[in-house]
């Protein structure tokens, strides 16, 4: 089982490159049991979405 720290690294990299099948499986297994990392995943995605709507873009 990967650590939370490593899971957050994979979550972050998943926003910048395509993760390998092994990485995706390890991450999915971790997310299945870890609510803190599930929240982190949602929040990292939210950061990207939010910055696309930053007021200077409007």
């Amino acid at each position, binding site marked *: 089982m990967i650590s939370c720290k490593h899971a957050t690294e994979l979550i*972050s990299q998943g926003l910048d490159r395509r993760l390998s099948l092994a990485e995706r499986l390890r991450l999915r297994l971790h997310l299945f049991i870890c609510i803190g990392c599930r929240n982190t995943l949602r929040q990292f995605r939210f950061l990207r979405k*939010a910055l696309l709507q930053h007021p200077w873009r409007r």
Partner: protein
Amino acid sequence: MYAFLYNQPVIHYCLPVSMTAAADFHTIIATLRPRLLGFARLQLRSAAAAEDVVQEALLAAMEGAERFKGEAAFSTWVFAILKNKIIDEMRCARRTKDDIDAEDALDDALSALFDQRDHWVDMPPAWGDPEASLEQKRFWEVMDTCLTQLPKSPARVFTMREFLGLETEEICKELAISSSNCWVLLHRARLALRECLNVRWFGETAS
């Protein structure tokens, strides 16, 4: 560099002949300039450097201003020029001792989020409906504060990725860093921003 132009309306120096009314053009620049400055300042962290790139972008933009009929097309074009000026500026930026200290402090703060086995010390809580915050002016003030608190190296890579929309390969090329270094910096930036928003915004509003 263009210090002599500061505090003076750009229009005095370069009137675009074929934009129908110079007064309209003046208005467009006057409304555009604060947005350009805000955008540049957030990314360059230096009011002087931001003034420089905005001035350069406006001067470059005005050389071809006659090609643009509408305000929207012109502003898109100016932003595109500004983006490239910002990337040039970021490429040249050198880290100071203070920048390196700030990066070390961030590393320590982020390490403290995890225990010896690299699991969360405190589980990140849910944020409820974060999208609702996007409509609040105060949220963006907090966001800008959090972005400004990022040390230079992670901030630069994060900005190029999320504001300027570059792919990581392009960022690596521009800054001459490895892709793994790039991913490490993006990871730190995201963790730090998540933490900052959690403490300064979602912690207060979460029920």
